[in-house]
């Protein structure tokens, strides 16, 4: 049973949301950070493309209505892991997820779980802004339209509300019928965020959402994320450590490990902790080397 609808009616208070234990019981050795009613609970998760295991043995919980960041050098599997959180990896032939990915209490990869339903609840914003070759209005209306047949007036409301939430309304309200491709890169990315919001997901996954944007557009997206975390759970993959430090409450650090015997590479979660701790006094020396710029 999904409990999202209950959750929306009774949002947890900050106190409830806070982590309840750090390394106290046996289970916690795998999950150093535990939350009350986490959105995701990953247990021994590995993702493989054919024979290549991109990331292995990840154990973590992701809290509700907050921002969690995945950082690490290129090829460490953080994007792959992110994509496994809404079954975007399903689209790649040969991709396989092992272990258990729980969304609240439901297993994302249960045979009864529908990838379409999963993706409606768990949206995704991609690295490169990918507006559809349609008008600004039609881009935002796309999600509601494929998920039902809303009336025109309803749709107008959803479009305006979503664009306002994405801090884009004032810039585009007079040209809703212009092509979305005429927007700047930063506006396009905010449009993609508005488009995600329009289907009212609980979670928004962001895969390096600012890597194609200039610093000012990046700043605007970050401000937007801080605003959105009041209502949405955000998981962001970023190469920009300052960004992770600025926006996220929790940070997971990944590395690529090379097996000395078989020479196979795989990504691993080295450390998952409060962002402040990761950037000041991390437990693992590899994390420290990375965040202080000694490697990576």
């Amino acid at each position: 049973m999904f409990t999202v609808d209950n959750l929306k009616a009774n949002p947890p208070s900050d106190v409830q949301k806070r982590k309840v234990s750090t390394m106290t019981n046996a289970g916690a050795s795998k999950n150093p950070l535990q939350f009350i009613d986490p959105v995701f609970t990953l247990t021994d998760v590995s993702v493989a493309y054919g024979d290549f295991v991109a990331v292995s043995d990840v154990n973590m919980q992701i809290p509700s209505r907050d921002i969690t960041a995945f950082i690490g050098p290129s090829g460490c599997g953080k994007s792959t892991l992110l994509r496994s959180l809404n079954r975007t990896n399903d689209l790649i032939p040969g991709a396989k997820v092992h272990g258990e990915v729980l969304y609240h209490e439901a297993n994302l990869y249960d045979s009864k779980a529908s990838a379409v339903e999963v993706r409606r609840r768990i949206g995704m914003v991609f690295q490169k802004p990918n507006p559809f070759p349609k008008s600004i209005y039609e881009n935002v209306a796309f999600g509601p339209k494929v998920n039902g047949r809303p009336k025109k007036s309803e749709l107008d409301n959803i479009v305006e509300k979503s664009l306002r939430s994405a801090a884009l309304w004032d810039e585009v309200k007079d040209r809703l019928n212009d092509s979305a491709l005429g927007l700047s890169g930063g506006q396009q990315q905010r449009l993609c965020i508005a488009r995600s919001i329009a289907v009212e997901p609980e979670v928004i996954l962001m895969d390096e959402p600012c890597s194609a944007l200039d610093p000012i557009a990046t700043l605007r997206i970050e401000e937007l994320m801080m605003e959105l975390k009041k209502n949405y759970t955000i998981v962001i993959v970023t190469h920009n450590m300052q960004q992770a430090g600025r926006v996220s409450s929790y940070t997971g650090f990944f590395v690529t490990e090379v097996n000395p015997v078989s020479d196979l590479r795989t990504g691993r979660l080295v450390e998952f902790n409060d962002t402040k701790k990761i950037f000041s006094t991390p437990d693992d020396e590899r994390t420290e080397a990375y965040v202080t710029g000694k490697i990576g």
Partner: protein
Amino acid sequence: MSNTTAVSLESRLSPRRVFIDGIFRFFLLTSITFALGFIFMIVYRLWKNAGWLLSWDLIKNFPSYDIDSAGFQSSIMGSIWVVGVATAIALPIGALTALYLESFSNKKSKLQKLVELNIQNLAGVPAVVFGLIGLAFIARGPLSWGFTVGSAALVIAMLILPVIIIITRESIRAVPPSFKEGALALGATPWQAVYRLVLPYAIPGTATGTILAVSRAIGESAPLLLLGALSFVTFNPTGLDSGFTILPLAIFKYASDSREEFQVLASAGSLILLAILFAMNLSAILLRDRTLRKRNV
């Protein structure tokens, strides 16, 4: 002056490389001159021969043994009927096949590879073979549709189907995968993503390709030779069961007449056929350019 760095920007290419460059450019120019030269030569000869004969009467008149009132109406209408019906059959089948192969099927399966290989092969099968199949299975045999517009349209449809599949697949492949990803991330089903985003984006490319395939089919005469199109038809087709002839074969019929006037008439018919082909190819190019312009906003 002593503070500046001395550099020479003179070419340091060896004479051998300059020579090879020159040879290469020469071959390119020769090739394009040959290609264009042939077309111009054909058009020029036809025009000189029969240009003076072109008139609306030539298009409006039916074939006749009287040179003064002979024309091409029934064959032009026959070509339009056959190719029109063939396109109506082949385009939806071809486009849906391409859509399935590109967007839904398992690309790694052996069956898919086999189907792909066979489509490529079909595109290379000589047209006359399709004519024989049509004769054996459609005009006679199981369907026994006779020498009719319907039989001819089915044969031409078979002829252009593989080309339409290949072209449609190309234009579907040209759709950025990020559209589909984006749509799926919003909870769209794969079919919704294809129907609402992939298909509209692929339509102009498919249309362009189809026009080219069809313009090729209009000039095709071999398969329909076997389906009774080489006949003296003085009426327009009235439906699928109607007898017919087509423009290339009407030209052939006039050209094989021993009287010289009729051979001039054949040249005039060729000019009409060429004009139709040019018009179709031009519309394909315009359609393509318009789409590209619209996309680059």
